């Protein structure tokens, strides 16, 4: 009860969003590493996919990820509503401050990119996790590689995925370094490095994920 009370304060909410956000960044790093196996051909990719879906820990991990996602979104939406209440009258003229400000297109559109990423996530799971089930005749494993190639033969899907990965990159551009700030892990001497590292990781994740549909469409 005390924990819930603490996490409902403005500072507690920021910390909760930061922790859940960083947990999802950790998931994305693992997901990207796994996905990049697609560049090495169907055998290794399908074997990796089989190892994942046959793992008994998959369901508890998935439940955990859904719980993390729900906490992240729920807290973020609550904070947005709180912020709206905090300024009931808007300014007639308001300019960006510049200088030391870290305000960017990414930071001002977090809730928008967040909602769009959620919609993408639903579509992504529908396409792959719950999509067509092909079986590899030699191993008997699910042939996810064939589905991957089939989906990204469509230029529409490639453009859609690349745009969505741009949104993920944008969300993380502000999100990663912001999480360190919210957790208080941003000492003055490390600020510039953390900001740069957060932006670099966001770029790597965005480009890394976008690389797969582009590779499948143009190379395979």
């Amino acid at each position, binding site marked *: 009860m005390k924990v819930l009370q603490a996490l409902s304060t403005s500072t507690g909410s920021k910390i909760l969003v930061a922790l859940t956000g960083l947990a999802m960044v950790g998931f994305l790093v693992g997901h990207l590493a796994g996905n990049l196996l697609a560049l090495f051909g169907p055998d290794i990719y399908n074997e990796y996919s089989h190892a994942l879906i046959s793992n008994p820990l998959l369901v508890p991990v998935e439940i955990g990820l859904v719980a993390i996602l729900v906490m992240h979104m729920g807290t973020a939406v609550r*904070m947005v509503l709180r*912020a709206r209440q905090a*300024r009931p009258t808007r300014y007639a003229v308001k300019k960006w*401050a510049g200088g*030391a400000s870290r305000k960017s297109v990414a930071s001002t559109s977090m809730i928008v990119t967040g909602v769009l990423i959620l919609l993408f996530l639903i579509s992504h799971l529908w396409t792959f996790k719950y999509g067509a089930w092909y079986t590899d005749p030699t191993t008997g494993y699910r042939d996810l590689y064939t589905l991957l190639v089939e989906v990204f033969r469509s230029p529409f899907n490639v453009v859609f995925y690349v745009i969505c990965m741009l949104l993920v990159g944008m969300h993380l551009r502000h999100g990663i370094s912001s999480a360190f*700030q*919210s957790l208080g892990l941003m000492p003055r001497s490390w600020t510039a490095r953390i900001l740069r590292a957060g932006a670099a990781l966001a770029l790597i994740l965005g480009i890394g994920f976008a690389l797969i549909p582009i590779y499948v469409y143009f190379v395979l």
Partner: protein
Amino acid sequence: MRIHLRIWRQNGPTDQGRFENHTVESVSPDMSFLEMLDTLNETLIRQGQEPVAFDSDCREGICGTCGFLVDGQPHGPDPCTTVCQLHMRRFKDGDHLTLEPWRAKAFPVLRDLVVDRSAFDRIIQAGGYTSVNTGGAPDGNAVPIAKQTAEAAFDSAQCIGCGACVAACKNASAVLFTSAKVTHMALLPQGQVERHTRVLNMVARMDLEGFGPCSNEGECEAVCPKGISLANIATLNREWWKATLLK
């Protein structure tokens, strides 16, 4: 210089308010922004109209009393400058400027450009003090504090409580103000006794007053007339979770 002003006018807290246009003639570039408004007010009084209400006291940039938005920027376009230290040489002849009060639920408009900032006083009352009896003035260096620590504490203690951070933040958050006091006290020996209760009580009070959550955008630091750094907010966050775990 001739300056065209679009000023927020509001007769009282319950009045809806509206913008009013005024032109100030013969503005000297050496005038401060508030002196320019004084000139306008003298004209308005001579014409039998109500002068524009705005807060000011020291007019030296150290008391934190003045403050409103000049063309969408708290305290105007100059960095690390209060509006009383903003000078008309910063503007051009014929400029059109919009003047608006701080906008936040926790800072209700009292009249024209004057807002009620007593919410800040209540945040300080919640923990921005030390109740340890420190006696008379101590001898110099009787309590050894490293030079770097003393400098860092002073950087945070420079906050003048003007409210520009709240005005600039898209969420109308008061975390920069609160964190400056929390950091200042956490760095010094006198602040250690109430270190944990202070941060918890001040954050709780800040929420109760209706300020929004931190956006981590740093608009607050960019407009702060004293250059209070976002590093203070990181310190507050760290102090808060440590205090929560140890409670």
